[in-house]
């Protein structure tokens, strides 16, 4: 007997909007890790990222009855999380603790190519970018969203997004330029 396919997000969201608490809980279990990762990479703070995720889910729960299914549930959740993280970043002074490079990230298969210190350098450089550049960069390069998806999350046109991403990549390389030597191990 084959394993049942996972229930699609859209079906769970529809059931949750109709009052099915279990369906909403499945969405929480399915998407929290991703939302936390995005929030952490935007805010650079694990505590703030957790705040963002908590608030995002509460917002999602309250907004769900009005969700029109014009975008994918995952895209909508990315948007809620991104907006929450953006609010946190804008409320504080431009100093970024960024604990991700020290404690929040563990080595992955490809990650062993570079040292944790070098990864930390990259993450700190990203954290120094203006949030208008940082967020699309994180969604595209770190989360692997398509241009269309990132544009939908940020509610901008794809050409505008491409231009912003190009500037973000150039800015990131410029920041890495002073601190990074390729091939260093």
């Amino acid at each position, binding site marked *: 007997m084959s394993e049942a396919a996972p229930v699609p997000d859209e079906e769970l969201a529809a059931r949750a909007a109709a009052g099915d608490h279990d369906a909403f809980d499945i969405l929480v279990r399915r998407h929290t890790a991703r939302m936390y990762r995005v929030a952490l990479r935007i805010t650079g703070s694990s505590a703030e990222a*957790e705040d963002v995720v908590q608030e995002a889910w509460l917002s999602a729960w309250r907004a769900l009855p009005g969700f029109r299914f014009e975008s994918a549930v995952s895209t909508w959740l990315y948007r809620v999380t991104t907006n929450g993280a953006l609010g946190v970043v804008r409320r504080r002074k431009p100093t970024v603790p960024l604990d991700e490079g020290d404690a929040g990230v563990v080595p992955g298969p490809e*990650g062993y190519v570079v040292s944790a210190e070098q990864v930390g350098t990259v993450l700190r450089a990203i954290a120094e970018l203006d949030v208008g550049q940082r967020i699309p960069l994180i969604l595209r390069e770190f989360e692997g969203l398509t241009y269309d998806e990132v544009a939908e999350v940020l509610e901008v046109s794809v050409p505008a997004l491409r231009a912003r991403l190009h500037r973000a990549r150039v800015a990131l390389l410029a920041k890495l*330029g002073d601190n990074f030597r390729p091939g260093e191990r």
Partner: protein
Amino acid sequence: MSEDPRDDPRWQQVRAAASRPVPTPPGLVERVLRSVSGVRGGHTTAPLDLPSSGGKTQVSERALVLMTRSLAAEIGRELGGVHVSAVALEEDVLQVLVTIRFGVEAAVAELLRHRVSAALTGQLGSAPPTINVHVVDVHPD
């Protein structure tokens, strides 16, 4: 500059950084579920009756939990290093779960409890239910 920055050799380091997994904090999903459960209620269906000098104030569990969460988060920010993880009403007692920054004295929990209670009293116009503050984790930043 028309070259694609991703062709720069340094970009491999960005890819490597992106490939590193980010672990979810232990218990985060459960804390989220508890928060959601707290605001959607279910423990009590009837609104709470809060006695006041001129009569009584009725407030739903959802409204009370959301109000408490909002006030606790704001007061936590003012105190510094205190983050609200979850709020729930259990057996007519408000349970506030917080994480505190390393170095912040745990006594801040008592201060938070007092201030949240006072703020709720101000908003509701009557004494809120008992509030318990639990420090559930310490974070490094």
